[in-house]
């Protein structure tokens, strides 16, 4: 059989709605025989912003920050910073802020160098800087996602799983800080449900707590642990499905404090 022609011949033949006939209507998630795929995928900020924007235009430009990047030899901090910077790149894309995205593209490369993955990241970082200069936002968005995934893949290949978890955590933190800040400035019950992430934060907390002690030594990582604990109690909707304005403010403050601590430590 010509496998190339098989590949090229794919076309859609049908769409069926409602429920699949071949799947159980309910599964017991506590069944010990269930097999879960271990790779957790953290939503990128744009995925969350896409939902919020459906409720009306948001002022994403206000969320673009200009923070000085200081790289040191602490690889755990660098991995978190990497995740943070990429998520800030996504915020810059949402705000269509050319200068901030160009700067973040350069920061991404500096951090990749420090993590020893510059070779893999360079092409993406250059595409981010150049694409932002031309205002090609779709391409920049795609390159940011590729950058993040490339680093995660390389870390896995190098068996640096602890850094994978920290890149993911940093990325989630940056997106959550921006989301909470937007909701704090323009609170709506409907939009607040985007912060309802109890299972995701539980997963992040578990991943963090499972890191070897050497990867989370020092005051910064004590703060990470405490903040995750605090956020777990806040990022849970009430009976109406909303998260109160007071909790949104708390989430905003807690995430902002942690982001600043990561940059400044």
């Amino acid at each position, binding site marked *: 059989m010509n496998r190339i022609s098989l590949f090229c011949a794919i076309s859609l033949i049908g769409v069926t709605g409602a429920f699949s006939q071949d799947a159980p209507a309910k599964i017991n998630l506590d069944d010990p025989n269930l097999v879960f795929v271990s790779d957790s995928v953290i939503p990128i900020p744009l995925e969350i912003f*896409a939902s919020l924007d459906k409720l009306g235009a948001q002022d994403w430009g206000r969320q673009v920050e200009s923070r000085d990047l200081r790289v040191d030899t602490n690889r755990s901090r660098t991995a978190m910073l990497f995740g943070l910077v990429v998520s800030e790149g996504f915020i810059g894309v949402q705000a269509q802020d050319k200068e901030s995205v160009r700067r973040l593209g350069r920061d991404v490369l500096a951090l990749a160098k420090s993590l020893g993955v510059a070779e893999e990241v360079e092409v993406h970082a250059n595409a981010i800087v150049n694409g932002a200069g031309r205002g090609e936002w779709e391409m920049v968005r795609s390159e940011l996602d590729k950058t993040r995934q490339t680093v995660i893949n390389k870390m896995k290949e190098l068996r640096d799983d602890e850094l994978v978890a920290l890149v993911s955590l940093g990325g989630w933190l940056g997106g959550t800080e921006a989301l909470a800040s937007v909701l704090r400035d323009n609170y709506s019950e409907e939009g607040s449900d985007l912060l309802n992430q109890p299972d995701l934060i539980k997963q992040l907390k578990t991943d963090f707590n499972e890191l070897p002690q050497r990867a989370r030594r020092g005051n910064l990582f004590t703060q990470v642990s405490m903040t995750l604990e605090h956020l777990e109690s806040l990022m849970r909707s009430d009976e109406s499905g909303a998260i109160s304005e007071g909790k949104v403010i708390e989430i905003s403050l807690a995430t902002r404090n942690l982001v600043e601590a990561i940059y400044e430590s």
Partner: protein
Amino acid sequence: MRAKSFLAALTFSLAGALVAQDTVEAPQLSKTHNYIKLLAQEAALPSLRGQEKFILRESWWSGNLAPGKAKLIQLQLFRRNSYQFWIAVPNRKAEPLINVYDSSGNLVSSEAITFDTGNLVSTVIQPEETGVYYLRVSLKTTVEDAQDWAVIYAYR
């Protein structure tokens, strides 16, 4: 134009992957998975174009499924977004399935999309609540061999 270039690049990459497979006795698992992922990406192309296009994530999952077995992937989804998932396996008779369950284990209403080849299927859902969901991947028919699989997803 960009989609055509992407398709050309994809076909070129696939050709390379196939040549590699033909010349290596025991292909590495990751190469097989990358090839299967390309199949899923090719099937996704029509959804990534036009006014109402989905945005493909770079993250994806892969593994190996034994006949009659299922695996679950945990994922946070957000209300008001739509999500499309694609699963691909190598065997055209394997008929993979992909279904979505909410955090209580209830099957979520979805739109199943089938293709003219039995090794690909896709599903679209619009979550009613923000929260954790579970993708259940399985094989519909009893094929003799376990199948490597790849799942990709997109949002809009």
